[in-house]
């Protein structure tokens, strides 16, 4: 999946459909963040939610590309990670670690 532009609330519903479809059709989904300018909370929620679903279905959802400054700022401000890395693949481990903690609680 290659995403671009500003991923804000107005695109949230469409994006959710795209994520659902991708996870349904493939065992591994790679999200390319290279062309993403900015994100808002709705997208972060979506990412977490998709990642949770992927791990439930024994599929993988991973990130790739370089994160824009705006994107990193948003992640830091929201407390999703303390120092957001530039490399999306690294961010993935940060986010998924957290996710794993949340996962354990669900069990």
């Amino acid at each position, binding site marked *: 999946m290659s995403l671009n532009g500003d991923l804000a*609330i107005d695109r*949230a*519903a469409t*994006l*959710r459909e795209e*994520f*659902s479809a991708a*996870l349904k059709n493939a065992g591994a989904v790679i999200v390319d963040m290279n062309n993403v300018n900015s994100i*808002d*909370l*709705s997208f*972060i*929620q*979506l990412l*977490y*939610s*998709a990642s*949770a*679903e992927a791990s*439930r279905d024994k599929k993988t959802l991973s990130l790739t590309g370089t994160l824009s400054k705006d994107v990193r*700022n*948003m992640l830091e*401000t*929201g*407390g*999703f990670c*303390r120092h957001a890395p530039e490399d999306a693949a690294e961010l993935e481990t940060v986010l998924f670690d*957290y996710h794993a*903690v*949340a996962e*354990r*609680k669900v069990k």
Partner: protein
Amino acid sequence: MIERFRENFREEAYELLNTLESHLMHLEEDPSNSEVIAAVFRSMHTIKGSAAMFGFDQISSFTHEVESVLDLVRNGKLSFTRELTGLTLRTRDHIREMLEAGEPVSEELDRISETLMNEYRKLAGTVGQSEPKPGTKSAAKNAIVDEEHEPENTFLVRFKPNQTIFENGTNPLLLLNELKGLGDFSCIPYMDRLPELSGLDAEKCYVSWDIILTTHKGVNEIRDVFIFLEDSANIEIQVIERSDLGMDGPHKLLGQILVERGVIDRDRIETIVRSQKRLGQMLVEDAGVNPSVVQSALDEQDHLERARSRARDRVQGELAASTIRVSSEKLDQQVDLVGELVTLQARLSQSILTLGLDGQITAIAESLERLTAELRDSTMSMRMLPIGTTFSKFKRLVRDLSNELGKDIELTTDGGETELDKTVIERLNDPLIHIIRNSIDHGIEMPEKRVNDGKLRTGTIRLAAAHAGAFVQISISDNGAGLDIAKIRSRAIERGLVSKEAQLSDDEVIGLIFAPGFSTADAVTKVSGRGVGMDVVRKEIENLGGSVQIQSQQGEGMTTTLNIPLTLAIIEGLLVEIGGDRYVFPLAHVTECVELTEQMRGEHRNRRMLENRGELLPYVSLREVFEIKGDTPVIQQIVVANIENRKIGFVVDSVIGDYQTVIKSLGKVYHDARGLSGATILGDGAVALILDIPQLSQIAMNDAETSLKR
């Protein structure tokens, strides 16, 4: 009491104004330096605050308005143009005048305030800033509490937006960003409400936060951030640590935080603690506490620790930078006492020697000697100031004068950190102003002429200071026209200072400008050329025990070099004896010592001339000058001194050796004693007089002239 506080405030304000001035000069070179801009703002802010506190209401309300313009600069809405710098410099002078005049301020000063304010308003008006409202005058008094001195508190903010919060266009992350701006901020999101993708309504908000914020601001300001969503979110704010309640207690433990938050009760924690695993881990595994709750509590702990260590750093920083104001009189007194101690110690050492004591008492005397020397050095260092403190004043001088004369001049400084005795620095002020004025007025040419001569349009005056042994060398160089040797010569002939036929070297001609009242300026300008110039400079410098040299290259500029002793309180001297009494030559003037035998005197038929190193050396007998009776020893000594590049010999009975000594003033009664500049107490308790060499050579010269005329 209040008067004393006011006096303190005045002193502090003068200091602040000086700092302000040097910062403004800095901004003229580097107008966008945000650190300096902030410093300028702070100076103004502090003056405003303390002025109001000590009842200088007019100063306070005036500076308040200035401050609001500076605030625009600080926020990048206005930039430090030359115009604004100039205006602020004038403002600085005006505040100084108001401080000196005291309150109530005269109508005239009030009018100046008004004029300055109008200029500020005009400048500020260009960025569309409305004029300060009349109400701001009284607001000044309320605004004096400096925010940075408010205690910092740490708050826990629980922010739980309703799911529908996105609908009215709110972006929770932006709110967090706003909170971030209030202080030290950390937050942890809770996503336990977040469903998996299939059940997710992407347009609803499922996240909530625990935010920990350490800030100077109060609860209300935090609440203001959320002001538009009181209905669409659940917000709880509580203080979890107040820095003004001291920082001595232990850190909050994880369990304590969780108990306080009501996540778990104390008993349960205690049971678990006994099982000796890491508490956080145990809580998650055994007590079924949500891991993100634990994470959040850990974050809080972390955050508090950071806030505390910051507060501690601040306290230590304040301690490290703490200084005490001591009046310079007290320091002078201290130097006097240390001088006495040095003398007494020397007597002790000498007595032990004469009495032939040794063993333990010698060891004690040696330790005392070491300690005394250290005490002396540290006392002297208390009086030392970096000379750079005066440099910024000269920048201002150059700026103002060159503007007035339509010249383009830049002052560069070097070695501002060189330390000199406070008194010396103060007394250097006038001579330096003279020399710099000369450079501005006579040295640097008009810009057009400079361009024609193939020079850079902007002239440079360089002010440099450096240590050179027991002296500090201060040089003032310019790249202007240099001295006009021919002009000086003809002017000197006009004034009858030299005869028409005299063959003078360039250096000798340059020396003529030190003659009293000498000036080559065709017209007396406002700046210099009144004829009180270099002679006064030289006199002042010599009074300081220093010397002046001038080098000049026509068309390329000139350099004036001042050699100034590090301190006035101690001199390196040469101890000599005449008729059983002892005298001290300041070593700075002494070049060598030679023997004078009866035979040598005879050779020159008592003409008081001696051949020394291939030159004729005139000499005087101090015995005669001071009218000391008694027999002259067969072999006498001549101490050769160098005064203004001329050598002159002083005949003494014998030379004892070099001697470092603390200078004592002779007091008012003897202030007109010729040829003496002070006294000192020797190790054996005897008094030795310190010779004033420049004055003595003058006396000798006059005597020689009168004897020639006879």
